[in-house]
C-alpha cells in the first residue's frame, strides 16, 4: 500500500481489469465489484484518487456520487496520499487498558511524525489510531501496510520500524 508517485496512471491497466473481471462472475451485479475495485485502485496508487473514482464509476456503471459515498464510508480507503508505510495502531479499550497509548507515543517519536495522520517529514510513515483490530489478547496489535503485527511494546518500536525503510 505504499504511495506511488505515478498516480496519473489509470487504475484499469489490462492486468488490473482482468483481475477485476475475474471476480465478476461471483456476483449478479456490477456494483458488487465496488469494494474490490477500490482495493485494486488503492493498491495501485497508494490512495483512491479523484480520477480513480471517476474511472471506477465508469467501469461499474454507477454514478461518481455513489462511489464517493462508499469511499467515504469505509475507513481503510485513503482519500489523500499517505506515507510510504501506513501504520494503524489499536487503542480501543482492551488495548488502551494494557498500554497502547505508550506504543503510540513511541511510534510518533521514532517515525518523526508530528501528529497522528500527518505523514512524517521524510514521507516514510503515517501513523493513525484505529478502533479494535480484533487481536485484543495480543496488546498492542497494529497493521503496518498489510502486515498484521501482534504484541508490540514501546521498546520494540525502533527495531520494528527498521524493517520498513
Amino acid at each position: 500500500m505504499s504511495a506511488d508517485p505515478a498516480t496519473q496512471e489509470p487504475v484499469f491497466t489490462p492486468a488490473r481489469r482482468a483481475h477485476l473481471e475475474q471476480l465478476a462472475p461471483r456476483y449478479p451485479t456490477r456494483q458488487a465489484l465496488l469494494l474490490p475495485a477500490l482495493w485494486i485502485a488503492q493498491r495501485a496508487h497508494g490512495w483512491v484518487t479523484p480520477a480513480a473514482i471517476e474511472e471506477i464509476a465508469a467501469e461499474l456503471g454507477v454514478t461518481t456520487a455513489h462511489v464517493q459515498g462508499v469511499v467515504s464510508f469505509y475507513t481503510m480507503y485513503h482519500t489523500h496520499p499517505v506515507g510510504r508505510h501506513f501504520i494503524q495502531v489499536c487503542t480501543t479499550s482492551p488495548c488502551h487498558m494494557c498500554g497502547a497509548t505508550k506504543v503510540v507515543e513511541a511510534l510518533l517519536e521514532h517515525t518523526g511524525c508530528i501528529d497522528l495522520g500527518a505523514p512524517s517529514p521524510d514521507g516514510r510513515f503515517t501513523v493513525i489510531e484505529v478502533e479494535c483490530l480484533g487481536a485484543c489478547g495480543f496488546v498492542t496489535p497494529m497493521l503496518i501496510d498489510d502486515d498484521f503485527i501482534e504484541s508490540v511494546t514501546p521498546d520494540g518500536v525502533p527495531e520494528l520500524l527498521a524493517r520498513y525503510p
Partner: protein
Amino acid sequence: MGWPHPIHPGETPLLSTHFGEVEARTHAGWVARGGYEGLRQALTMTPEEIVAVVKASGLRGRGGAGFPTGMKWSFMPKEDGQPHYLCCNADESEPGTFKDREILRWTPHALIEGCAIGCLGIRADSCIIFVRGEYTEPGRILEAALAEAYAAGSIGADAMGSGKRVDVFVHWGAGAYICGEETALMNAIEGKRGNPRIKPPFPAVSGLFGMPTTINNVETLAAVPPIITRGAAWYAGLSLSSPKSTGTKLISVCGHVRRPGTYEITMGLPMQELIFDLAGGMREGRTLKAVIPGGSSVPILTAEEAATCITDYEGIAAAGSLLGSGGMIVMDDTTDMVFQIMRLAKFYAHESCAQCTNCREGTAWTTRILERILRGEGQASDLDLLLDLADNMTGRTICVLSDSCATPVVSGIKKFRSEFDAYISGARAPVLQEA
C-alpha cells in the same frame, strides 16, 4: 486450546484442537486430521436432514445473538426457484473478541467445510465469507485454503465428486465495525455504504441482492462439520449446565489477566474458573474489579457478579449480562471505569453509520459528556443526562449499535457510580486536558 497457550485441562478442545499447527492449514493436513468427512456425509443428505441435525444439536449463533442455527436455516424457502445465499460473517470487530481470527488463521478448512455444508442445508449455490479488511493475515490464509479446496475438488462445480455445485469465496471489507451487522454486511457486499437495513423483510425472505439469505458467524459454521460426523446428540450432550446452551464456546479473554488468549470451554464452565484458572487470574497484587463477558456491547459485571456466574447463554443472562460473542474483557482494581466507559462510547461514536439520529447524536453526546466529566467539568446533573440519553438510544434505531453504546454507560453508572461522582465533585483529579 487457549491459543497462544498450551491446552489447559479445564478446556474442551473441539474447534481449537489444531490451533498452532501450521500443517492443519493445508488441504492435505486437514484431510489427515479427519477433515472434509462432514462435507462428504452432508453431500449424501437432503437439506431437511442437514437442518434437522443442526437443530437437534442445539447449536446457537456464536456471533453474539445466540439464535438457534438450525431454526435460522429452516426459515429459508424451499423450492422457490431463486438463488439463495449464505454469508459468513468474518467481520470480527467487537472489542474484546478475537476468536474467529484463530479459526481463520489455523483451521481455515474447518470453516470452508462448514460453509459448504451450510450451503447444502439452505440450498445456496454460493457462500460469501465477508472478511474485515484489517484481517490481512487470516484472510490471506483463508484465500490460500480456498484455492487448495477448489484444486482438490472438495468444493466447486462438482464438490467431492457428488455432482453438486458449492462455491465459497472471500469478499474483503474495508474498515467499518457496523458491517458485522448482518444487513450492513449485505450492503457492503452489494457495493453500498454499510448502513443497516430496516427489518422486516428479514434476510431469509429478502437478503443479499434481494434473494433469500442466511448469515452465520465463523465459529457457528466451523462447529457444523463435527456435528454432522459425530451426531447431534453428542454435541447436545456437551454442556455442564443448561440444556439450552450446548456444545463448546471459544472465549477470547483479554485485559488484565496473566494469560490472555482464546479458550475453548464446554458451555456452563464457571466464569471464576475461566478467569482465574484458564486465563491465569490477575497479575501480582491486583484484584478483579469488573468483567465485560461478551464483547463490549453487553452489560458490565462486577467482580461479585462474576464470582458466581456460569459461562453460558442462560448463566450470564441470569447474572445480568450476555454471553454475546464470547469476547471477555477483564478489568482489575487499577481500572478507571469512567475512562474506559468513555473509551467504549468513543468507539461506538466512531463506528456509528449515522443514519439514525438517536445513534449519531447519542453516541457523540455520550462521549462528549463523559469526556467533560473526565476533564473535571462534569455537573451533578450529568449522570441523569447520560441515563436519559441512554434511554433514548435503546430500542429506537434500525440496528443495535446505539443500544450497544448505551449498555456500558447504564451498567457502569449503576455499578460504579462513586467513580463518576468522584470526578464530578472534584475528589478525583481530572485525567483529560482541554476540549
